[in-house]
């Protein structure tokens, strides 16, 4: 055999991969271009799509890449930058990179198996099955979309109302805050007046209570010293009786030990209780030898006489509440006030002229006398408050709390108003709404536009995975599907040997809000897939089905 012949034979065998059908792999929309080229026998029948050059029809699908853009080889793997179109009859056509033509792998996108035609592998046509599954999946997707769109419409109408009501709420609150601020100013002024009265009053009461205490003390001290004397004499009686008892028992012990030893032993044998008693006394005495063999009880109270000064002297404060002035105490009766007033007047005159003149009880007394049956006007109430520091403080505190509450509500409302709540504020209703998933040993929770946390399922405290920081994916390079397809939570708890924790939430259309999966692709950088009606879109851009 001639070498050349052998070569020719093998060439056929090894080059049979060449596609003979110039229309193989051509996208239907381009078919007419290739058909026109095939019909022509010009050497420039086919123009590369990039216009770089023209080639004869025989160069189309001849398994050699002539065009830089790969357009001449839709049916082979010759051009790395070309695509192959599979017809997929019974399903829908698909394009795959040319690198997957005749690579020995049945590409799932080409259910008709047309991507593998060189005989190395036989790919069955599974389009009927794939098509049916695809249709079913499409129908399911459509159902989900329908449900999702319905919910999304609710979100949108909520958002429209919420915006109007927020504006009104802010307006109302701000007006209320103005009112309450004015009232706080009033109360602050009243408070300083009332507190001046109060401090004078306290000084007076303290003085009174000291006087009363002084009056009582001498008798109390006398009682105390009498009691102490009584205790001392009963101790002395007890001590002398103990000594007496000891000497009797000592005598018994002497008998036992010396004089009538044997007889006594016999007695002890007959009376075991006596023996035990003696034994116990011996132990008792033994324990006291270091103290001279005698037990003495001492009263450890010094000094013998309790003096007035030992209570702290005249400077000691007395609880003013215990001596509540019935003319200031709103619950006290007018009668008691009158009594007290009389006493106060007397004391005041007796001690100093100053106190009764600024005595706060005058107000109540005056009112009680002047109009016992009338209700209080605002100015009258203020008049009362002016002399009631406790009440004015309470009122002021209540007013301040209320103001702060309203202010924080306004801040919250304004913050929400300033928030990017997505297209048409569709996320309005979902702000702060939380969804969870268990994944391996953890429970993950995200609250939309708010925060993300992780808790061990076995119990224990949660870890902060971050606060909502922005729309868009973690890395800019992934932004192809639009920034509202991702929600970033950042700046969570710091990670040992790593960054602050963060979560990238990828959003896809779903009938309800649900976490589909969670993973941690890099240390402490989490990725979640979440379904939500909020991102459902009808293909074409209108939310109509």
């Amino acid at each position, binding site marked *: 055999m001639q*070498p050349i012949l052998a070569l020719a034979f093998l060439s056929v065998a090894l080059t049979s991969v060449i596609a003979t059908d110039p229309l193989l792999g051509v996208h239907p929309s381009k078919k007419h271009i290739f058909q026109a080229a095939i019909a022509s026998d010009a050497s420039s029948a086919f123009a590369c799509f990039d216009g770089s050059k023209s080639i004869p029809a025989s160069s189309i699908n001849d*398994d050699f890449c002539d065009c830089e853009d790969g357009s001449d080889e839709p049916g082979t793997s010759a051009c790395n930058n070309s695509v192959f179109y599979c017809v997929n009859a019974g399903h829908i056509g698909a394009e795959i990179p040319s*690198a997957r033509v005749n*690579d020995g792998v049945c590409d799932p996108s080409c259910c008709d198996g047309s991507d593998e035609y060189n005989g190395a592998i036989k790919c069955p046509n599974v389009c009927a099955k794939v098509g049916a599954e695809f249709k079913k999946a499409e129908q399911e997707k459509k159902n989900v979309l329908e449900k999702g769109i319905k919910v999304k419409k609710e979100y949108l109408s909520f958002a429209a109302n919420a915006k109007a009501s927020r504006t009104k709420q802010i307006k109302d609150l701000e007006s209320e805050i103005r009112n309450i601020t004015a009232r706080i100013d009033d109360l602050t002024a009243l408070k300083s007046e009332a507190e001046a009265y109060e401090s004078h009053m306290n000084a007076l009461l303290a003085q009174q209570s000291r006087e009363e205490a002084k009056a009582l003390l001498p008798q109390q001290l006398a009682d105390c010293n009498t009691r102490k004397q009584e205790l001392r004499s009963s101790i002395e009686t007890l001590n002398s009786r103990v000594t007496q008892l000891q000497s009797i028992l000592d005598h018994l012990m002497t008998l036992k030990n010396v004089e009538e030893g044997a007889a006594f032993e016999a007695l002890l044998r007959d009376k075991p209780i006596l023996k035990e008693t003696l034994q116990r006394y011996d132990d008792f005495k033994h324990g006291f030898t270091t103290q001279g063999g005698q037990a003495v009880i001492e009263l450890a109270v010094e000094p013998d006489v309790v003096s007035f000064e030992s209570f702290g002297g005249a400077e000691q404060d007395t609880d003013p509440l215990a001596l509540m002035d019935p003319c200031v105490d709103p619950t006290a009766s007018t009668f008691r006030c009158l009594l007290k007033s009389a006493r106060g007047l007397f004391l005041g005159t007796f001690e100093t002229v100053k106190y009764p003149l600024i005595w706060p009880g005058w107000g109540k007394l005056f009112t009680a006398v002047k109009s016992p049956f009338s209700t209080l006007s605002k100015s009258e109430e203020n008049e009362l408050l002016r002399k009631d520091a406790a009440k004015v403080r309470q009122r002021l505190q209540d007013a301040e709390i209320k103001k702060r509450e309203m202010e924080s509500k306004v801040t919250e409302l304004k913050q929400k108003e300033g928030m990017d709540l997505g297209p048409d504020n569709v996320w309005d209703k979902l702000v702060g709404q939380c969804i969870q998933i268990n994944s*391996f040993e953890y429970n993950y929770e995200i609250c939309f536009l708010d925060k993300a946390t992780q808790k061990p399922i076995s119990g224990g405290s949660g870890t902060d995975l971050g606060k909502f920081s922005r729309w868009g994916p973690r890395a800019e390079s992934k932004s192809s599907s639009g920034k509202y397809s991702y929600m970033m939570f950042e700046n969570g708890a710091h990670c040992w*040997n790593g960054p602050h924790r963060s979560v990238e939430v990828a959003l896809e259309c779903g009938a309800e809000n649900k976490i589909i999966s969670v993973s941690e*692709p890099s*240390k402490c950088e989490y990725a979640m897939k979440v379904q939500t009606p909020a991102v459902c879109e009808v293909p074409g851009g209108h939310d109509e089905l």
Partner: protein
Amino acid sequence: MALYGSVPFLMAHKKGRSVGVLWVNAAEMWVDIEKLEGTNKPSLQMQDYIPFSTTSTQKTSTSTHWMSESGTLDLLIFLGPTPADVSAQMTSFTGRSAMPQHFAIGYHQSRWNYLDEQDVQDVDAGFDEHQIPYDVLWLDIEHTNGKRYFTWDKVKFPEPKVMQEELGIKGRKMVTIIDPHLKQDDAYPVSKRAKDLGLLVKNKDGGDFDGWCWPGTSYWIDYLNPAGREFWAEQFKYTNYEGSTKYLYTWNDMNEPSVFSGPEITMPKDNLHFGGVEHRDVHNIYGALQHRATAEGHRLRSDNTDRPFVLSRAFFIGTQRYGAIWTGDNTAEWGHLEISIPMLLTIGVSGVTFAGADVGGFFGNPDAELLTRWYQTAAFQPFFRGHAHIDTKRREPWLFGEPYTSLIRESIQRRYRILPYLYTLFWEASQTGVPIMRPLMMEFPNDEETFGIDNAFMLGSGLLVHPVVKQGASSVNVYLPPSAKWYDYDTYQPIKSGRTTVQTPLEKVPTFLKAGTILPRRDRIRRAANLGLRDPYTLIIALDDFGTARGSMYVDDGHSYEFEKGAYIITDFVYEKGVLNATSSRRVDATPALQKDVVEKLGARVERLVLVGVKGGVKSVTVGGRRLEFKSEKGVVVVKDPKVIVGEEWKIVVA
């Protein structure tokens, strides 16, 4: 950076003479290397012991002083006289590198850790979506059940076989990590049985050595014990390693051995091995023996039909017989990219040619520029794997956006195009011991200017690569030995030899084609290396001043041992006087049936010739009288589809 391997080999070279010294000892050792002024020579000088040593005319000389703590010692001296000769001589003693699997020279994607089956699926799909080829997806320690190797985390990897098959169907593979420490757990059969069989490394008192590593308290198999290696190899059988398939290969890490609780994070020196040998005597060989036992396990599980692929961190003299190594835990810093070149050159010269450094740096986060430059560099290095620490951010090639995704894609594709050339170099290394990645002085031993160059390298004898390893470098100063003529590999235009400055925008990897080279390529990019095994070739024919070029290509089935029986093709291409002549040689002892089959099974057509440096016009290109289409521009002639078959003999005439 820690050192994970040691080959006590030193090569000395001067114009006209190379020698090598191999100090065969596995204990702790020190080597002092001292440069001395000419008149002040030490009394003991290497050249005094070399009978053919030429008299030094240089002002400086080098003296080395070797010290080992203990153990046995063999000293071997290889006389060259060229660096390639020294490599051949040394590896004739230490062993030639094993022919790797074809997939293994593609790109590997690793991370500590791909978390679960979904993650594996997503990363795999990411490569397809971005049309970036890759061959192997790696799983680090977290894939196991509590760091018990040969097991799976059943929650995260419930269907390991399905996972591997899904990769396998696309021509891809998976690698799992299998470390030498065994968790102390009687419910863990590997550990229990190794203990019961008495195959563990012992402490100084003869009890089983107890140390701390990833799983907590652990045992270590004694790979010095032949029964230990046999036991280990058995574990790789599909019946023993549950959830393993033929698509699964192995990575041996922590095998220096790493012992967290031990002195210098390794074993106490007075630990005892097989035969009562102290660890101090054999420390450096321990990991290599695990590598060996693992490779034997791979052969065992396939009944000697499938070539092993095992990556090891520890290595020693002769590691090249067992598989690949990498330089260990590096960092995402420019300095670590830069040093990867001299490290890999040194390791290659020491015989271990299938080596690489983790792309991007293991620790820390590379920025997009560093990562891009690292891919560009590593695409031309023998073992090509991206890997990252568990604390780092994700860095799969498409995560940095444009232009980086495209630049990284281009780097990896550049690798895949030269796979036929690279595979041929691996064959050459397996036959001659010459490393794939070579210092310039190995190719130009008489050019003194090349002696100190370690920021550029030769890939085979045809490509000179001078990667950019400095941040923001807008140019590099390249040395192109003037004894040859050079072309820019990207443009095929001639470039001035000697010292020359090359502009290096981010897309540029200064790569040069040596005139006189025929470089076989496969320009069709498939998803994985093995999917393109029957794809047509492109031959780059770079003409020298005489209008000649030569090259050769080795082809086999890429995975089996059939090549040992002769099932391979070696085609030699010679271009001279306007004729490209392809001749094939095969082993003479191949059976006639094999000879008949081999081209049919392994042959593929040549779809394109690229003639570089053509002087004057070309009127016609013909093969067997058939005229071929061609186009000619700026001295580059591209010939369309000669339809000739690699493995057959043919002539193409350019007139």
